[in-house]
């Protein structure tokens, strides 16, 4: 029974998603859901390195943007189908994660964090100077007119994102209860003790940065189709990086469900605030919530709930 719970829940979500595309017509719903799912994948990916392994990545926006620009570069060259774009973006960003990790993770952990922060600036500089993908002024991407059996392309993109999100949650959940996941937790808790217990810490950290990068790249790959106009400023938006840190931190980093809860709550709240109040205020609120949570409730929502349950039990 226990082993079937998660796959059954995933299947239910897919069916619900399909039903949603059949029943709802207002494109706003699909756009809002797409934005939340995109943030969810980013949060889950960030948490694999941040929550499971204990290393901070500030450059989530850069991984995301490189994913989006991988799509753009391929689309400028040929009519590459979406699944291939996603695969290619995951590959490129996984390699970037591996490379940055290899150069900095042999040293103290903070250097990795600083490197990811500076990496965003450099990759943005590169894209700004690369006229093939539009340079600083950006580029328009035509949305294809074929969209399987869906009513519109944005409905199909929503479904693609839903599948990607389920996939990333499944990866993260499997990881957290596996041998690899225990190795990562050991690294997070005490790296020297982990190494002396036979854990190949550098190798595991690199696996972690690579998986994180690949997931973030995959999340960015469909973005050009979603917005149909991409420029470096929007793709490298700091807000993406803040969200992918804030959502796991608010939801709770120690458990795989933390970033999911955080992304769904914060993401939905953001959609509501953006519509009813203003988007700038929304951005500020995320920052404030992030700081409040990490100072006052570092275990996040999932941590608080589990603590409460343990007390009652």
């Amino acid at each position, binding site marked *: 029974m226990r082993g079937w719970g998660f796959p059954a829940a995933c299947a239910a979500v897919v069916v619900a998603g399909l039903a949603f595309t059949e029943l709802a017509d207002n494109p706003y719903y699909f756009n809002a859901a797409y934005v939340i799912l995109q943030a969810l994948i980013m949060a889950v990916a960030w948490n694999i390195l941040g929550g499971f392994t204990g290393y901070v990545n500030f450059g989530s926006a850069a991984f995301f943007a490189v994913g989006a620009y991988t799509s753009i570069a391929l689309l400028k060259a040929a009519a590459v189908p979406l699944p291939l774009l996603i695969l290619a973006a995951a590959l490129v960003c996984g390699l970037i994660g591996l490379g940055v990790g290899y150069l900095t993770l042999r040293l103290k952990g903070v250097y990795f964090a600083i490197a990811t922060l500076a990496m965003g600036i450099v990759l943005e500089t590169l894209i700004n100077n690369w006229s093939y993908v539009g340079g600083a002024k950006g580029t328009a991407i035509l949305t294809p007119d074929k969209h399987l059996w869906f009513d519109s392309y944005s409905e199909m993109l929503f479904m693609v994102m839903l599948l990607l999100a389920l996939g990333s949650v499944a990866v993260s959940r499997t990881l957290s209860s596996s*041998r690899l996941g*225990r*190795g990562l*937790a*050991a690294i*997070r*808790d*005490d790296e*020297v*003790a*982990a*190494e*002396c*217990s*036979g*854990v*190949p*810490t550098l190798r595991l950290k690199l696996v972690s940065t690579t998986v994180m990068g690949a997931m973030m790249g995959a999340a960015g790959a469909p973005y050009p189709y979603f917005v149909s106009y991409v420029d470096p400023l929007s793709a490298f938006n700091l807000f993406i990086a803040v969200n992918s840190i804030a959502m796991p931190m608010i939801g709770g980093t*120690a458990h795989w469900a933390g970033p999911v809860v955080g992304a769904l709550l914060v993401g939905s709240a953001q959609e509501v605030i953006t519509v009813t109040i203003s988007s700038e205020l929304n951005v500020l609120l995320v920052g404030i919530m992030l700081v409040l949570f990490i100072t006052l409730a570092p275990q996040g929502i999932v941590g608080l709930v589990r603590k409460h349950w343990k007390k009652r039990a």
Partner: protein
Amino acid sequence: MSALLQVAGLAKRFGGFTALEGIALDVAPGERLGLIGPNGSGKTTLINCISGALYNDEGRIAFEGRDITRLPPFQRARLGIARSFQIPKPFRSLTVLDNLRVPLEYAARTRSAHRRAEDEAMRVLESMGLAARAHQDSAGLTQVDMRKLELARAMAAHPRLLISDEAMAGLSGAEVDEVLEILFKLNAAGITIIMIEHIMQAVMRFSQRVVCLDAGRIICEGTPEQTVANADVQRAYLGA
């Protein structure tokens, strides 16, 4: 019979400070070796070099005849060198049981199904008297249980050589006996043990041979009785 561990000409410096110099040490299979010396004499640095947490600047270290001088710590752990830490370093977010699964799955390479690793972790916990704590968070353990967990985790790596770094510091007399009991039991099962300890009574009871370090050099080596009687050891360490 050749030595299990061979250390030859080992030196370690931190900047201009020489922590270890000209260390030569052979440990025979099945031996119980006591390592003593004043604070700052280089005991912990030496076992850091043996376990790989630090790399020595000079000399070589061989384990079961194989040169391990440049091997990273995780590979030494897989070859069978396990250690406990002076200040316990549990994996705080994991349960006591999962703390043991890490070395079981990585160092002892119990790759088979979950169940087996879990059963074996339980067996190790039982032998340490920690079975009742298996599903607790390791961060909440008492001092003595924390020390036992250090040893249990080292044991779960299936070591040939166990280095115990002050496993009894801060424990009561009865607790010291309890830990000593465990170490004797492990040794009887064929595990070679290097014990670093300040509690001389425990060193005297446990060790077949004692090595005394002072200011980064070995100043004396012999049976416990010989070592205690040695004038240099008296002056440098025992404070007579």
